């Protein structure tokens, strides 16, 4: 922690979301960062390229996003906490290797500073278009963790959280930021670093240990070069990592264990933030940059006496099913309006969980590629409250 | 199960489980010591057999070129 004081000391700072992401990573213990330039994520790399050499960490600009995530996985197996950052087009390229990280249970963090798509789209404007991709971008069956910050401070804290989750559960964690959050400037208070909880991966304790994969309670992860002779492979394998690509029973075992690893501990993983739930008739659900408008709209609505509640998803994946269904248990809530800067992605999960109990509606911004105007949300709310 | 053929102080070991009958050792032996035998391994491959084992000088060409680590030379005590 002392070396971090070379980079940042406790205090108040005006900073960009992308800088907060880099700082959060450093504070969490990230000492390897590989990157390929892409708007609007470039500033994360620029800060990391300044910070990391100061504390003996490694910054490398790779030849593309594919090799960026590949080198992150390689570095993670040498015991380092490793991260890469990108935006939509790069995130698409990374999917195969993200699948490898999931398959090999490699802790790593991938930041996707979302921009407007599809394809090259509009690089410097925000969209929440990669939500499904974060869940299903790689082929095959798997589970993953994705978090959505909605402010600069959030970005710093959720980056630390992402590393902690990734180390604890030996899974890649995606941070779904966007061009708005990434580039905006806000005041952030850097606390006393000793107050921040940092989690490190479980390592094997005995030299004769050999079961390094597929435990629901997370197997210990050996470091390359310490004598464990671990075989790490993207092929279907057993608990010792030894490949079996003939017998479907190995596929069944592996896929179930990867799911169980996350779902057994889902209550520890998922987080939402709620406000003004008391006596709410209508809830506004949002995440990321849109949550800023949603909160403002809820405050305005409450001032006018409208019984509206605010729900912000912090964890997008695994979808916080239980927390969401518990929210409406009081029976008073009649409707939930899901606000997203896209054509409707997380709303389908909300519908899946709640449609039998209450009405689920979707509201995109007036213009995609922007966050909702709070007055527009208020207008829509009033229509929905009859 | 291995075939071990002693020749003075050189032993030619052929690992029946590993051999895949590729014939490289037979073709490359400079003294033509090995031939393809009718004996089949458990996997169904024709195993090599050193019929001129007395000529073996332990050059290890068979050992170095075997893709399956299935034939090797052990230098015994003189």
């Amino acid at each position: 922690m002392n070396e971090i004081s070379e980079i940042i000391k406790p205090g108040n700072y005006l900073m960009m979301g992308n800088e907060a992401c880099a700082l959060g990573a450093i504070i969490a213990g990230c000492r390897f960062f590989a990157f390929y330039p892409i708007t609007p994520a470039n500033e994360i790399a620029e800060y990391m390229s300044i910070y990391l050499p100061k504390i003996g960490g490694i910054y490398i600009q790779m030849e593309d996003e594919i090799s960026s995530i590949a080198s992150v996985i390689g570095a993670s197996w040498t015991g380092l906490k490793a991260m890469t950052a990108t935006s939509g087009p790069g995130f698409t390229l990374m999917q195969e290797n993200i699948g490898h990280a999931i398959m090999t249970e490699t802790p790593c963090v991938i930041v996707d500073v979302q921009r407007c798509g599809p394809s090259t789209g509009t690089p410097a404007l925000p969209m929440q278009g990669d939500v499904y991709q974060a869940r299903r971008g790689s082929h095959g069956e798997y589970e993953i963790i994705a978090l959505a910050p909605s402010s600069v401070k959030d970005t710093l804290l959720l980056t630390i959280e992402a590393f902690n989750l990734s180390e604890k559960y030996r899974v890649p964690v995606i941070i779904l930021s966007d061009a708005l959050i990434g580039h905006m400037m806000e005041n952030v208070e850097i606390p006393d670093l000793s107050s921040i909880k940092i989690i490190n991966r479980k390592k094997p304790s005995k030299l004769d240990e050999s079961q390094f994969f597929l435990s629901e309670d997370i197997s210990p992860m050996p470091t390359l070069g310490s004598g464990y002779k671990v075989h790490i492979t993207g092929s279907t394998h057993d608990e010792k990592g030894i490949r079996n690509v003939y017998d479907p029973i190995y596929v069944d075992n592996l896929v179930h264990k990867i799911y169980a690893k996350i779902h057994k501990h889902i209550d520890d993983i998922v987080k939402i933030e709620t406000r003004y739930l008391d006596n709410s008739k209508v809830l506004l659900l949002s995440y990321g940059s849109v949550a800023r408008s949603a909160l403002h709209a809820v405050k305005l609505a409450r001032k006018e006496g409208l019984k509206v509640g605010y729900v912000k998803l912090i964890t997008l994946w695994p979808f916080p099913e239980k927390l969401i269904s518990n929210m409406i248990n009081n029976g008073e809530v009649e409707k939930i309006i899901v606000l997203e800067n896209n054509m409707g992605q997380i709303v389908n999960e909300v519908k899946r969980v709640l449609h039998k109990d209450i009405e689920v509606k979707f509201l995109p911004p007036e213009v995609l590629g922007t966050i909702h105007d709070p007055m527009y949300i208020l207008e829509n709310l009033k229509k929905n409250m009859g | 199960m291995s075939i071990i053929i002693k020749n003075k102080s050189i032993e030619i070991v052929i690992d029946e489980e590993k051999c895949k009958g590729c014939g490289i050792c037979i073709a490359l032996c400079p003294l033509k010591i090995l031939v393809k035998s009718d004996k089949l391994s458990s996997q169904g491959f024709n195993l090599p057999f050193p019929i001129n084992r007395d000529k073996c000088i332990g050059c290890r060409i068979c050992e170095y070129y075997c893709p399956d680590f299935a034939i090797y030379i052990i230098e015994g005590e003189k």
Partner: protein
Amino acid sequence: MISKVYEHPLIKYLRKGIRQPFCSGCGNGIIAQCILRAINDLKVDMKKIVFVSGIGCSGWIPTLFNADTLHTTHGRPIAFATGVKLGNPELKVVVLTGDGDGAAIGGNHLIHAARRNIEILTILVNNRIYGMTGGQVAPTTPHGMKTTTTPYGNIECPFDLCKLVEAAGAAYVARWTTFHVKQLISSIKKGFLKEGFSFIEIVSQCPIQYGKYIDLQEPAKLLLMLKDLSINKDKAKTINEKELKEKIIIGEFVDREVIGFSKAYEQLIIKVREKRNE
């Protein structure tokens, strides 16, 4: 006359219980032996070596080894290996890749790793075809050859991978065939100890897929064919281009002293930290 159980001289380097997965007569097994012999001769601690391999038959070579092995996605072993080497520069990193894995889908990473001169030994097994997937044309398949995806003959020309890697900036570049085991072992030792990016292309026999298309599936004959096609690089300078086209030029093409990437990065860190202390 079985008096006691004799084990293979390289047994301590082999992972227990792993079955040799290659086809009968495949060059991969010979290459595996050469790698282990080189390590044995150098007396290097196997614990400090990490083998990184790609997808393809050559990617299965390290699965035989009793060592830390990282089996990656198709075309990317060099990128993964870059992360391993930078993450812990004390480790010796050896990449096993093939002509499809290393020069087609992985070509970009090969070029950049050579340019960066990252301290990795890359062994590229060139069987001049996509073996694992059934015999499709590869970027190293000879012109005119029939394969499963060039049923009328290959109209593309193959790479000269050694020239490519030399131009990209590697510290050590060599080419041998599976016939040249002694030279191969020597090259592997050199490449292993070299500071910088070392590249060894090994032209290898694939009796099942490649052999099928040239009507030569007997492994020994295919291996001897590679020997007959080989020509030493110095001798190659004396024969005309037309004759040279069919040949496999063997030898060491590059052997130079240039600072490796991880060393250069270490120096950068020292400089940055010194400045900070001023």
